[in-house]
């Protein structure tokens, strides 16, 4: 129903992890889940998403590599290593949104984006691969790339399987170019090798020349990647 993977199982796995770290946090989340199941009055979905850090512990969720692998088995490429617990809780909360009605679902998720504070944006963008109807959020992901907030950009671009799976070529190329521009660790862009293309090669080469003309340094990875793009021609 809109999901491309077994979201029930993932939801349970995340809940277990949260409970292991903080039983009271999970208890509060379960109580909110109950309210949502009973009809979700007074925008309980939106308010809960926002209020999570007031009721859920904020420290590192303490996921080990093995836990992250467990997630990745359920949703390929989803590895929330080093996530704080409240971000993991927000991902879990997103999975509780009824997804039977596509238009309703998309509208609810979009309204979270519209009023999102920085850490909420981080949580939302890094949870893109978990959403139902993922193809509906392509423009939103492209919007995330336009941000000037480093943490938000990282949430879309790094360690996130969504962009390489769903972005159109134009938006994808902007993501890669901007990662170089913002001096982000480009190696952490998932699916980079798979989506090299000649246009990206041209953009990277032009950008390198511009930097050289201004007397600025160029990341050696940029030249390597540009060469691989050219090889695709």
């Amino acid at each position: 129903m809109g999901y491309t993977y077994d979201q029930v199982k993932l939801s349970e796995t995340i809940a277990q992890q949260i409970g292991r770290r903080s039983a009271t946090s999970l208890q509060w989340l379960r109580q909110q889940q109950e309210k949502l199941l009973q009809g979700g009055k007074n925008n309980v979905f939106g308010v809960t998403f926002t209020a999570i850090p007031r009721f859920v512990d904020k420290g590192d969720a303490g996921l080990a590599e093995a836990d992250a692998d467990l997630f990745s088995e359920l949703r390929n490429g989803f590895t929330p290593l080093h996530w704080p617990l409240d971000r993991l809780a927000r991902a879990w909360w997103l999975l509780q949104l009824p997804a039977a009605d596509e238009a309703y679902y998309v509208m609810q998720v979009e309204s979270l984006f519209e009023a999102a504070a920085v850490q909420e944006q981080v949580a939302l963008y890094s949870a893109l691969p978990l959403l139902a109807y993922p193809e509906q959020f392509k423009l939103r992901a492209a919007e995330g790339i336009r941000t000037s907030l480093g943490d938000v950009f990282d949430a879309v671009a790094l360690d996130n399987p969504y962009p390489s799976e769903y972005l159109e070529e134009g938006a994808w190329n902007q993501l890669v170019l901007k990662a170089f521009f913002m001096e982000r660790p480009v190696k952490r862009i998932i699916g980079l090798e798979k989506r090299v293309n000649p246009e990206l090669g041209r953009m990277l080469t032009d950008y390198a020349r511009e930097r050289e003309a201004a007397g600025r340094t160029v990341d050696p990875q940029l030249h390597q990647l540009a060469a691989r793009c050219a090889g695709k021609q």
Partner: protein
Amino acid sequence: MCCSSALTESQLQDKDSEPLYLEKIKGMRFFDPHVHMTSRTTDDYQAMADAGVAAIIEPAFWLGQPRTGVDTFRDYYSSLIGWERFRASQFGIRHYCTIGLNSKEANNEGLAEEVMEILPLFIYKEGVVGVGEIGFDDQTALEEKYYRAQLELAKEANLPVQIHTPHRDKKRGTRRSMDIALEHGLDPGMVIVDHNNEETVKEVLDRGFWAAFTIYPFTKMGNERMVAVVKQYGSKNIMVNSAADWGISDPLAVPKTAALMKDQGITDSDIRLVTYQNAITAFGQSGQINEAEFAADADIDQSQRFEGSSVLRGGQQPRIDKRSAIIR
């Protein structure tokens, strides 16, 4: 000196010396619990950081002209918890805000209803330290209606309330604001009554509320008067702010007032209470203020962290030398 000769480079440079008052307050830290940074420039942020302002609260207010739709309110609230906070962090200043429907725009009932619907979503955001600034402007029935509704909201969320008292018919408006807050069962210790003057302060303090003073040229308090108030009433439950906005106002009002207090013999510990600690104690009841966070920011070495980087990371920006005519 005009028109007859070309400007030289040295004439374009800023004067090298610091203002004298900065010397007097060297090493002090300030908390400005009311300043509308949305209307200010990055130069103001820089000057505030240089003067020792460690953290601020930006209350939600109107923008100088009435808004016509709920979406612009949503975007405004979002900018207070998002972009503006980020902008402040570039200068090592911790930015908090209060969220509310201001009294002027409460008079547009249709719009006010829509705004009330989105408010609950915003008051639970991280770094929201209260409901504010709310209260009376013209003291109309609609202003009262939405003031009361928001008091209920604050009570439910267990958040402090920041009350804007009216410019006109102030004494009565201030008393009425307090009466209504008590009627709704709010603890006066959770309520900060703002824009006090010599005429209102006694009653506010006597009734157990926090009394905030706005140092704002011409229309509100001057800082010489403020010094006299502290001499008379002491430092308990009193706090100073700038309420700097788009008008002729001064984002350095808090450090300047501290310097004047120091000059006129008020003790360091009293200065600290009225220009820093009391605001933190009052708004800290939201559970959203963590002093350790702004202490950490102050120690960042900008050049080491950001040299050669064009990225905005939510830390401090590298400082540019404004005296140089060269821009790199």
